[in-house]
């Protein structure tokens, strides 16, 4: 069949505009606009702080947005705490390598209970405030579609990503793709007999974890080949 007669219709320009709001790493899709750190602080306190904390530091509702990045990381474009193991937790800015990602996500999804309620200028302002909290821009900074590409060059983890792995299909990077062409990390063998000398136990279930998921006896059928182990209450082992 060369066409599906009667199925679908062209999208109008207004329709595409209404839904095509994504912003790519090369800033394709970025709306025009601007906003200052000050404006952003006001907006953030009003619309974001209740969940993310006044300084984007809260762990209450979600992992913190900011923190864990250093001036040095901004130079190298690699968050050092990720390899040194000193990072207490991975905040958004310790991970993100593309500033477009944060703009795009706030614009499409935040605030959580009122997604898509922000105007472009508001998104710029809020992002400016978050960049200031991350010590990437000064307090009098005005972020806009004109200068966001400059900010990208300061992102602490901008060089922190690799696509050199086997979990993206298609050609390897050297042949125009972005992965390694599908080569897996490990090469276990299907050994069948006397495959090793001894069994090395790396970890066993901690006692608190055994009971942290409620009464396991009640998470299995009360008939069948096994019973759920009684983990709570007087009968528990």
């Amino acid at each position, binding site marked *: 069949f060369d066409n599906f007669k009667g199925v679908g219709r062209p999208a109008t320009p207004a329709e595409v505009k209404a839904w095509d709001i994504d912003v790519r790493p090369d800033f394709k899709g970025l709306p025009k606009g601007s906003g200052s750190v000050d404006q952003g602080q006001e907006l953030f306190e009003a619309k974001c702080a209740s969940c993310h904390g006044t300084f984007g530091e809260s762990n209450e509702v979600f992992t913190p947005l900011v923190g864990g990045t250093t001036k040095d990381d901004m130079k190298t474009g690699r968050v050092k705490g990720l390899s040194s193991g000193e990072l207490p937790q991975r905040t958004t800015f310790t991970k993100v390598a593309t500033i477009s990602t944060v703009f795009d996500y706030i614009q499409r999804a935040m605030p959580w209970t009122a997604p898509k309620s922000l105007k472009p200028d508001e998104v710029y302002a809020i992002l400016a405030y978050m960049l200031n909290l991350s010590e990437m821009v000064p307090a009098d900074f005005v972020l806009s579609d004109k200068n966001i590409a400059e900010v990208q060059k300061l992102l602490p983890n901008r060089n922190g990503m690799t696509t050199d792995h086997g979990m993206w299909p298609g050609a390897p990077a050297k042949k125009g793709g972005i992965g390694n062409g599908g080569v897996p990390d490990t090469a276990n063998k299907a050994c069948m007999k006397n495959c090793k000398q001894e069994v090395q136990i790396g970890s066993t279930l901690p006692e608190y974890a055994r009971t942290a*998921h409620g009464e396991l006896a009640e998470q299995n059928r009360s008939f069948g080949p096994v019973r759920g182990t009684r983990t709570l209450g007087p009968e528990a082992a």
Partner: protein
Amino acid sequence: GAALTAPLAARASEGDANILQNPAWTTSLGQPVAARPYGMPSQYESQLLRRESPGLARVGGASVSFAPLQGLFGIITPSGLHFERHHQGWHDIDPSKHRLMVNGSDDSLLKKAKVYTLDELMRLPSASRIHFIECGANTGLEWGNVAVPTVQYTHGMLSCSEFTGVPLKYLLDDCGVDYKKARYVLAEGADGSSMTRTIPMEMVESGEVMVAYGQNGEMLRPENGYPLRLVVPGVQGVSWVKWLRRIEVGDQPYATKDEAVHYIDLLPNGLHRQYSSVQEAKSVITTPSGGQTLLDHGFYNVSGLAWSGRGKIKQVDVSFDGGINWQTARLEGPIQNKALTRFNINWVWDGKPAILQSRAMDETGYVQPTYGQLRKVRGTKSIYHNNAIQSWKIIESGEVSNVQVL
């Protein structure tokens, strides 16, 4: 213990009272047909539910509920027990108001952007295929060490359904996509998060990626994307965008939040792997499994699931001694591309401690790795894509618990 096996034994010399006296259901009239025009499980099945893992997520709208694999059979996951992962909660969308748009990051990438209604999409050539869906974070809690007690929490971000829908390629063809230029697809949902993910065009071209509306014979459940979701066989669940409302073809990947801040795999060298998508071969024994207790010594059917994002399962081996010796399990057929495969193996438990493991091999010859092998490359903070061999330890009392063998 004796208390547990009591129902197994005759209760008196004459025999079992459940036999000697006919039970009520054998001596009375039951309920009429269509008493329940849409049926539900037995009242005696109420212990098998999808459940959250306490402390995993702070809010239920951006959390996970796990499928109770410890009590499931075969490969089809009952839709009512399908695992859930939402980023901004789920909605029951009115299908008459739902639209699917196909557009380009650039007008030059296709002949025309189009809009489709459900009325129209469901008129297109449809395909029905059985596929697994696994969250990239499945077993993620266990990267560093044993953390959770049962297979529901270790492996329960896993389900398998028969999906029906339209191969996405037909829609892209219909819009006149230039496949030379457009090598990436952005899929976008209609929920609050408007979840977006980049999908490789190679997978769309293969015909495998579907815009699905059907799941296990009926429409998708609201929690699973009613009325439309993308099905991306072999790829982690987050790419199977639910409540799908837009498809954009583009010449670059999109680095959306859930492929630039999450679903990225931290390596020991501090780099994160981005766009890791394919779920590599993996398996787990579901019966018996952690948090269960064997009732008795003797014969058991040991049963589990195997799957691979790279194709069909070729072989599953099971060890009862922590990986020193292995036996090949029976596979229940037909074995399908990127679908769960149920395996079974006979076992007589002699009452001594044992460590049960399963090891999957897929049609590419790839063999599921040990924890030791996997950690050597990926460290312990990867969060995603933990496909290491799972071990269950059985002690004399019959209690089964979660251990990691290196």
